[in-house]
C-alpha cells in the first residue's frame, strides 16, 4: 500500500481575501437541496418548505467567508451521534446525516469543531449539514456558483491505515 496516497477525499476551502459576501453560495445551496434543482425562481417561490442553506457565511465587514462541513477525517459528529444517523462514507469521507433517523438531540452540534451543523426546525426537527451535493454530481453548488472563485474544492492527503496506526491517530 502506497504510504501517502492522495485520497479521493475532497474538501471545500474558502479564500476570505476574495469572498465578496454576496451570499450567492447560500442561494445556490438552497436551490441544490430543493425539489427544483435547476430553477432558482421555483426553488424559492414554489418549495412548500424551502430547505436551509447548509453553507453559512460569516461576515464582519470587510471580512467574510463561506463555511460548510469539513468532512473531517475523524468526524466528531459521527462518533458523538447517539442514533447512528450521522455516518461517514469510508471511501469519499463525506459525512452525511440520515434525517429519517436523526432525532434532533444536537449532540453533533455539541461535537462539531466547526459549528457548521444547523438545527432545522421544519418538519421533525433534525440536524442539517453539507452533503457535498453528492446527488448533484460534479462540484458542489456553492463552489460552482461562487462568482469570485472564493470557494474551491481540493483533495485531502490522508495517511493510510498502517501509518496512522503507528502514528496513533489520537482522538484529539
Amino acid at each position, binding site marked *: 500500500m502506497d504510504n501517502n496516497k492522495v485520497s479521493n477525499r475532497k474538501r471545500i476551502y474558502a479564500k476570505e*481575501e*476574495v*469572498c*465578496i*459576501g*454576496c*451570499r*450567492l453560495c*447560500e*442561494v*445556490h445551496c438552497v436551490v441544490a437541496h430543493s425539489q427544483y434543482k435547476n430553477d*432558482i*425562481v421555483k426553488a*424559492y*417561490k414554489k418549495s412548500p418548505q424551502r430547505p436551509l442553506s447548509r453553507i453559512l457565511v460569516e461576515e464582519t*465587514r*470587510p471580512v467574510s467567508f463561506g463555511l460548510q462541513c469539513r468532512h473531517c477525517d475523524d468526524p466528531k459528529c459521527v462518533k458523538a451521534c447517539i442514533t447512528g444517523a450521522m455516518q461517514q462514507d469510508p471511501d469519499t469521507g463525506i459525512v452525511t446525516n440520515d434525517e429519517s433517523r436523526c432525532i434532533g438531540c444536537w449532540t453533533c452540534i455539541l461535537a462539531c469543531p466547526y459549528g457548521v451543523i444547523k438545527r432545522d426546525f421544519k418538519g421533525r426537527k433534525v440536524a442539517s449539514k453539507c452533503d457535498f451535493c453528492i446527488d448533484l454530481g460534479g462540484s458542489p453548488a456553492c463552489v460552482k*456558483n461562487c*462568482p*469570485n*472563485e*472564493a470557494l474551491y474544492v481540493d483533495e485531502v492527503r490522508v495517511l493510510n491505515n498502517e501509518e496512522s496506526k503507528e502514528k496513533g491517530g489520537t482522538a484529539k
Partner: protein
Amino acid sequence: MSLDYSTSEFTINRDKDRCIDCQVCVRQCANEAHYYDDEEQKVCSDEHKCVNCHRCVTLCPTRALSIKKHELEFRANANWTENAIKDIYKQAATGGILLTGMGNDRPYPIYWDHMLLNASQVTNPSIDPLREPMELKTFLGRKPESLKVENGKLAEKLPPQLELEIPIMFSAMSFGSISLNACKSMAQTAYENGIMYNTGEGGLHRDLYKYGRNTIVQVASGRFGVHPGYLNAGAAIEIKIGQGAKPGIGGHLPGEKVEAEVSLTRMIPQGSDAISPAPHHDIYSIEDLRQLIFALKEATNYTKPISVKIAAVHNVAAICSGIARAGADIIAIDGYRGGTGAAPTRIRDNVGIPVELALAAVDTRLRDEGIRNQVSIVCGGSVRNSADIIKAIALGADAVYIASSALLTMGCHMCQKCYTGKCNWGIATQDPNLTKRLNPEIAVKRLTNLLHAWSHEMKEMLGGMGINAIESLRGNRHMLRGIGLSDRDLNILGIKAAGE
C-alpha cells in the same frame, strides 16, 4: 434645505416574478441603490443612487434586474440638451467644477473607424498564421543609425531596449487611483505574457517589486513614491508630462483614497490629498526636460530606456521632435480619448486632439527630420481592439498602451464614476469591502485571454496583408486607406482614400 433639481438618471427594473429577495443586489451596491424593506419583507430600490454599473444586474441569480435610461424627458432642444441642462443644475447646486471619470465620451469622429486595411489578392499571397510563423516581437528604445559589426561580432552594444512579445502595454494607472488587486493583476499578466505595465504616479507597492522587469515606473509632477530603489526596480522609466484625458491639468487623489498602503507606497501622510501639480516645477522648457531625462539615466546608470509621455495637443509633432532631441528613448502619445480616474468634465471633453492624427503627424515629422529611429513611439488614448492596434502600427506606432480595455477586461462597466471611490467592481477604489471583489487570479486569466485573442486577430490581419513580422507594418501606410475623410485628414494621416 432648498429644492434639489437633480433627477434620476436611470430606472431600475426589478421583475417581481423573478426576484427571490435574496438581497445579493443589496449587498453588492456600494451606492445603496438597493435595500431590503423589513416591513414589506422585500427588496426595493432607490434608483436616484444608481450609477448603472451593472454590478447588481450581473450578479442577480435570477436575472431579475435591468437598468434603463430614465424616461424623464426635457422638451426637445437640439441646443439645450439634457446634459447641458443637468450640468447647469449640478453646478448651480454645488458651485463646483464638474468631475468625471474614464475617457472623453463626446461624439467626435473616431479616425480608427475611418481607416481600412489592405489584404493580398493574386499578385502576392496572404499568409496563414496557423501554418506559418507570425512575429509580433517588438523592441522599444533608441536605435543607432547603423550597426558596427567586426568579424561576425557586434562591435558596439545597443542602447537599452524593452523587448515586448506583443506590441501592447498596460498604460499608467496608479495604485491609489486603482486598487492594489488591479495593479497586481496587470503586473502578473505583463510578467506572464512578456509585456509591460505602468505604475502611473502611484509608486511601487512592495508586493510588486518582483514584477520589476515587466514594469515601467513613472515619474510625474508630484514625484510620489519616487526613490532610487523605485527607479531601479523597473525595466524603464516614464516621465509623465501630460495625460490625454486632462492635458495641462495635474492629478488629484482625494485623501479618502489615501489609506495605509497607498500612503506608504506614495510616501505621503495617510488621508492627505495627493496633488500632482499641472507642470513639473523643474520642467518649464525643453532643456529642463533634457536635464531630467539625463538625471534619470544617471540615476540608473544608463541601463534603462527613458520614456516621455505627453498628451496629444495641437503642435504635438514639434513637441515630440524636441523630446526626441532631448534624449528620450520612447515617446508615449496619449490621445484625447484616454481614460482617467478623475478629471474636470470640461477639460476631458474639450482639450487635446485625436491620437490617430497626432501619431501620424509625429511619425511623419520624425521621419522628415531623419530621427524616427532614435525614438520609439507608443500611442494610447482609446485603443479599443486589435484592428485599432494594427492601424496604429501602420500609421507609425511601435506599440500601443491600453488602459480602458484592460479595465473593462477586469470588470469595469464604464459608469464613469471612478472619482467617487465607490467602484462596485473593486477597481477604482480602496474600500476593502470593494477591492476584494477583484480576484487577481480571475483578472489575470481574463487579461491573458484578451492579449491572446488580440494577438491572434493581429496575426490574421498581418497574414492577410502578406506580412509575417509586425515590423514590416510599422509606418507602412500603404496598408491603410481612408474612408469618409477630407483631403486634409488624408493628408495628415498620410494615407490614400479607399479606391485610390
